[in-house]
């Protein structure tokens, strides 16, 4: 082996193009196989559309269309009635990775990183060579802008291939994006169909019109005209910050002193608490943030952990609400019983969050297989990595037998039931970048279990009541069937008319249900698992003659 000089090595050191990066890391962004790529593309476009509408306080109406162009190629069209995008920003939003408005703030929005839609444009470009076509019209302008966009894979800058003003008749404002991409359309649990259906469940204020590649149109109509409250932006809570982030914040802050930095950049830190943090960190309150070294930052970090700080405010979280969540479920699942609950807001690591759960039981659902689980984070359905998710874990560790479902130890319950769990937070902790599974924080699992127990209890009392009613009916029907027989036999014995006896007995039956005493154990017609022995007639004790 010959040694290489630094100069030689330097020849090989260069910028990595984002195209190469994307190619190597597409699994992180949800484009690892054709089926998932199609779903991710729709998901990113719809998430963006909904976020935009809600931010502008417009009731969303989203049109999704998939057209099959060849065996492996699809065209995705997503059009919303959102506020539109000003001409200047269109290229940046759609054709530049890591550009966006949501990355720097802490609020319960769907998108968080500014990767999604531009990654989709890049994926389409890499697999088909075609540009994305964006049409957008803000309410203020009369004409819409149409652009054909590509991303320069060397520089991560937008390339505008074509731009023109068009009339967009019948549309006051909105945005439409068309992307050709390689994909595969398969129905099932992890399909575009399922994603849109579940989106409709947790976004009851949204109308989605979906045309699938088979040209079948489905309309998920909104069930409420009430927009969810606008997600409030909050400053970070000291407990939720990591050392690296703390150092970054110290670097960019405009505060002149450490004391000021603490009170202005964090929530729940007043002058008193700030002073206490400084004392616990052995740092002077007047230190300039710019002069804080790494060692000092570490002291500050430890000082924060030692200080008692009030939990962050939770009014920045806007859950769907038990009622609306149940409405959403009713709309999409044909069942006989629904219930839901919203837990009070709590905090994990300085981040406020709320857990909601809903359940649909019976109806057309399969009773023999495991329950269907629907997981949501900030109103977005999670379709992949069910096994790795904290929600799945919490469902498995809840004792569903108490609530009338079958379940073997620590596994998913079995029964004709769907369970939906929604978590909303300013920062949802995912296990990875692809945002498909919730991380296993004990505080979060505990809250999910509490929510599940609440809906479970409601389910249990429904199933019990139903069983009681059917038992009562069964009992009555036993007598109804026996009466003609008894009347017939008695008529033969006594010579009294059968009809008269039967009528009198039926009258007794309908008038006095309390005549009907329940001694189940001796009755062969009823097949029960639990039999209690209380009968006076002990047939088994009769001995052979």
């Amino acid at each position, binding site marked *: 082996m010959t040694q290489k000089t630094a100069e030689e090595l330097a020849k090989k050191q260069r910028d990595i193009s984002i195209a190469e990066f994307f190619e190597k890391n597409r699994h992180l962004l949800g484009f690892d196989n054709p089926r998932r790529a199609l779903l991710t593309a729709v998901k990113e476009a719809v998430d963006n559309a909904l976020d935009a509408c809600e931010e502008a306080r417009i009731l969303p109406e989203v049109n999704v269309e998939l057209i099959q162009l060849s065996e492996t190629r699809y065209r995705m069209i997503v059009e919303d009635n959102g506020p539109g995008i000003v001409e200047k920003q269109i290229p940046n939003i759609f054709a530049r990775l890591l550009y966006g408005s949501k990355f720097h703030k802490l609020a319960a929005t769907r998108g968080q990183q500014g990767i999604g839609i531009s990654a989709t444009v890049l994926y389409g470009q890499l697999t088909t060579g075609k540009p994305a076509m964006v049409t957008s019209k803000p309410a203020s302008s009369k004409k819409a802008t149409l652009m054909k966009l590509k991303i320069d894979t060397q520089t991560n800058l937008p390339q505008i291939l074509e731009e023109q003003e068009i009339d967009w008749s019948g549309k006051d404002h909105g945005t439409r994006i068309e992307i050709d991409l390689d994909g595969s359309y398969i129905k099932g649990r992890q399909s575009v169909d399922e994603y849109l259906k579940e989106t409709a469940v947790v976004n009851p204020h949204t109308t989605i019109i979906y045309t699938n590649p088979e040209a079948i149109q489905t309309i998920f109509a909104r069930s409420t005209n009430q927009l969810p409250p606008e997600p409030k932006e909050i400053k970070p809570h000291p407990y939720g910050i990591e050392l690296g982030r703390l150092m970054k914040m110290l670097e960019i802050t405009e505060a002149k002193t450490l004391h000021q930095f603490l009170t202005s950049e964090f929530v729940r830190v007043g002058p008193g608490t700030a002073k206490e943090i400084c004392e616990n960190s052995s740092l002077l309150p007047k230190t300039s943030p710019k002069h804080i070294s790494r060692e000092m930052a570490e002291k500050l970090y430890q000082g924060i952990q030692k200080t008692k700080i009030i939990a962050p405010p939770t009014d920045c979280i806007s859950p769907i609400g038990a009622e609306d969540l149940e409405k959403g479920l009713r709309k999409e699942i044909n069942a006989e019983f629904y219930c839901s609950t919203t837990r009070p807001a709590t905090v994990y690591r300085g981040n406020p969050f709320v857990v909601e759960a809903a359940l649909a039981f019976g109806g057309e659902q399969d009773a023999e297989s495991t329950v269907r689980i629907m997981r949501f984070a900030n109103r977005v359905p999670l379709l992949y990595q069910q096994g790795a998710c904290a929600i799945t874990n919490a469902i498995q560790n809840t004792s569903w037998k108490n609530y009338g479902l079958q379940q073997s130890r620590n596994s998913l319950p079995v029964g004709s039931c769907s369970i939906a769990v929604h978590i909303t937070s300013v920062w949802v902790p995912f296990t990875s970048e692809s945002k498909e599974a919730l991380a296993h924080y004990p505080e979060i699992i505990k809250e999910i279990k509490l929510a599940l127990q609440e809906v479970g209890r409601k389910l249990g009392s429904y199933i019990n009541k139903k069983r009681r009613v059917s038992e009562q009916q069964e009992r009555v029907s036993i007598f109804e069937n026996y009466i003609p027989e*008894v009347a017939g*036999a008695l008529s033969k014995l006594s010579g*009294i008319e059968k009809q008269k006896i039967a009528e*009198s007995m039926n009258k007794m039956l309908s008038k006095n249900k309390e005549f*009907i*005493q329940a001694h189940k154990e001796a009755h062969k017609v009823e097949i029960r698992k639990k039999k209690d022995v209380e009968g*006076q007639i002990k047939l088994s004790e009769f*001995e052979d003659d």
Partner: protein
Amino acid sequence: MTNKKPKETIQELGKRLAKEILAGRPPKVVVPIRALSNIAFNKDTGTLQLGNKKAERNFFNVAHAKKFLQTLEVAAVSKELLEEGKHASLRDVFYMVKRTIPNTKINIVDDQPESDDAIEDLELLTEHSREQLNINANKMGSVAGQVVIEDKGDEIDWSRMGSGGWSIPSNVEEIKFKKVKAKYVLYMEKAAVWERLHEDKFWEKQDCIIMSSQGQTTRGIRRLLQRLSQEHKLTIYVLADFDPWGFYIYSVLKFGSINLAHMAESMTLNTAKFLGITADDIENYELKKHLITFKDVDSKRLEQLQNYEWFKDNKQWQRQFKMMKSLKAKAEIQALSSRGISFITDKYLPEKIKKQDWIE
């Protein structure tokens, strides 16, 4: 037993229930409980007797509805039989009652023990035996001896019935004894043993009557034995296997059975004697080599026998139980054949009776 005619009693039962219903009251019948918990041993009569515990069967009770219906169905069948002067077997009654209730998958009776049980209920309700209600058991028994009887106008000579003997009907109430030449009756639980004795003309040599059933002693046989014992003062000797079940056959004959405690008076044989096989016979007749080891059920049954009230104070029997327990084994009557095919005829039985070697 009541003096009223069976048909009238059944009609009255039906009328009473119909009236209750027309008056708007839920129909009920009250039946004494036929279980060990409601059985008492009457030391004066030496028989088992039904206690006072009663079970109410209310039609409007899910657990009772079906039994209630079954009892009425059986009553209706019996009334029909009585009206037409015909007899039906237990099996016949089962089929006459069995049908599916319209619009359901429920059968009035699913198998014969259910209808048999309903018939026993009817006996208790009407205080008439099932024979009086024109319902008969299957006949299962043979008899031979120097006896002439009259049954339904036919004269029958028990000594001239060929190799099969006269088969005992289930109802023996109407039989008249014309001539009885016998010193005792030998009753055995095994038909095969009866055939051996019959071939050897044991009844002629010993001046006795031999009678058998296959397994359980039927009511007809018990009643016939009782009539021979009461009307002709014959001693009844019982020959059964050396095992808990054989002992229990004797127990039923002598004291009555739990199931039929309500008719103990017309069934029991106070003078019955257990001739063999006893634990002492195992020793005296060298049968040890032919013992069969106990199974769990045998030990359990033996324990039950030991604790029956009517055996508790009987030292002879408790001694037998103890010896059987220590042997932990049983033996069949046929074990005697190991000593020669006619050993039982020529040696065992004459010797036992001569020595008065029996247990009471």
